[in-house]
């Protein structure tokens, strides 16, 4: 009979199987701290590549302004504990500010009540910072439904009735992504779709004018704010990615040359 063994701590304090994760968090923290320090002291930090989907955000808002039609933003269908939703929130503030600046109607459509409450505050604050608090309409930030396909139907209805000129969808999407993106495409909207859900990415690539792929959505707030300190965090993220590539390369070579040698695998599973 097997007896359940109590998990013992690694290195005296860390939980079993969590050492590699903890080291990644620490390393990322160190990289970010180094780059933030460089940015704050005015030293040069490496550039990040141009992201077409983020460059197109202002173009999309500009087009909606010219046409006198709204811009809509959908921050995915998951709650605020989802990192992709948090990434979308960082982007919303930029979009709402631009809309307030150009007097373009901004619609935010949510499927979860927590992001709804936060987005309402972000949008209100954005209009306030642009000196146009009177132009903020709380009815344009909408909680539609917590049910996936009821939300999808509501959004299609809004697309048909209110005819936004630009549709920005960034966050965690599932089966509704294709329905929303295709409806937007039929309406002739300029569309920017972004998600880290790999199973939905092909739909955005096929149906949207611009697609933000995976990590690009997490760089959005830093990229759009153009603040050196936040740029630094994105560069730190890239440094960590290079380190992971290196580990993958070493692991692949080891698995090919000496398949019985498992020290790297054991180390990562600590």
């Amino acid at each position: 009979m097997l007896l359940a063994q109590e998990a013992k701590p690694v290195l005296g304090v860390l939980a079993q199987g969590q050492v590699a994760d903890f080291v990644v968090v620490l390393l990322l923290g160190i990289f970010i701290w180094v780059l933030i320090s460089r940015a704050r002291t005015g030293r040069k930090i490496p550039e990040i590549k141009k992201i077409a989907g983020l460059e197109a955000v202002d173009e999309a808002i500009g087009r909606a302004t010219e046409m006198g039609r709204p811009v809509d933003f959908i921050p995915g269908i998951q709650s605020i504990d989802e990192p992709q939703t948090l990434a979308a929130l960082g982007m919303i503030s930029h979009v709402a500010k631009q809309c307030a600046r150009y007097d373009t109607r901004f619609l935010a459509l949510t499927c979860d009540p927590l992001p709804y409450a936060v987005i309402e505050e972000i949008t209100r604050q954005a209009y306030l910072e642009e000196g146009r608090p009177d132009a903020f309409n709380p009815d344009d930030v909408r909680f539609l439904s917590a049910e996936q396909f009821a939300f999808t139907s509501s959004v299609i209805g809004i697309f048909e009735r209110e005819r936004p000129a630009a549709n920005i969808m960034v966050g965690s999407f599932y089966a509704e992504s294709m329905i929303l993106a295709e409806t937007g495409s039929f309406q002739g909207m300029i569309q920017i779709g972004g998600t880290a859900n790999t199973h939905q990415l092909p739909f955005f690539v096929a149906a949207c004018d611009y697609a933000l792929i995976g990590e690009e959505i997490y760089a959005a707030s830093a990229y759009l704010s153009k603040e050196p300190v936040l740029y630094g965090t994105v560069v730190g993220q890239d440094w960590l990615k290079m380190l992971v590539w290196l580990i993958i390369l070493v692991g692949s070579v080891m698995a090919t040359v000496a398949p019985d040698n498992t020290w790297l695998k054991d180390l990562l599973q600590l």
Partner: protein
Amino acid sequence: MRKEGPMIVTVLSSLIVVFSAHFHLGKQLGIKDALDGWFLISICIALALGFVNLTAIHWKAIQRKREGWIFSVWLMIVMYGYAVLGLIQSHTGTQFNWIYQNIQAALSSAVFSLVAFFISSAAYRAFRIRTKEATVLMIFAVFVMLGRAPIGDAIWGQWSYWVNKIMAVPNMAGMRGILLGASIGAFATALRIMLGLERAHLGGTGTQ
């Protein structure tokens, strides 16, 4: 204090989650489970906010007799009616469940089924041969689609074998590359929030 209070709560909560996930003592204490419970409670409170928002928007539509206001009336009847029924019967009630299974689930399935039609129209656009990349995409897409159907193997016995190879090697490599980048991006976003560099979740305009 309007900004500092929530910021302190954010930093403390994230430290507790890190402690609870990575440290032996944290796991034993199970603090994260308690936090998860609190998160559920805050979702319920926010759901009430969403309820109020829907009521406000549709009440205005009814009062001003906006186009399609009759649908707003229907939405109010269904939303409040179903909520009251749920309060009376709880989620295990016969009528409550019947409505869910036979109306809500059926409607959801109907909307979900639309995906097939939208995929066809999107595929037509995506597979149009305009560039070299689109040509490669179309060739592989046709190859994979035929290999996923019985006709592939009927034409050539090795068809599904090669389709599985394409899906498991180059396709999987691409997917994992995106996933790795996205996971590191999520880590970086979490750290930005923990360090107070990104504050959009507090209702401000994003960054400090």
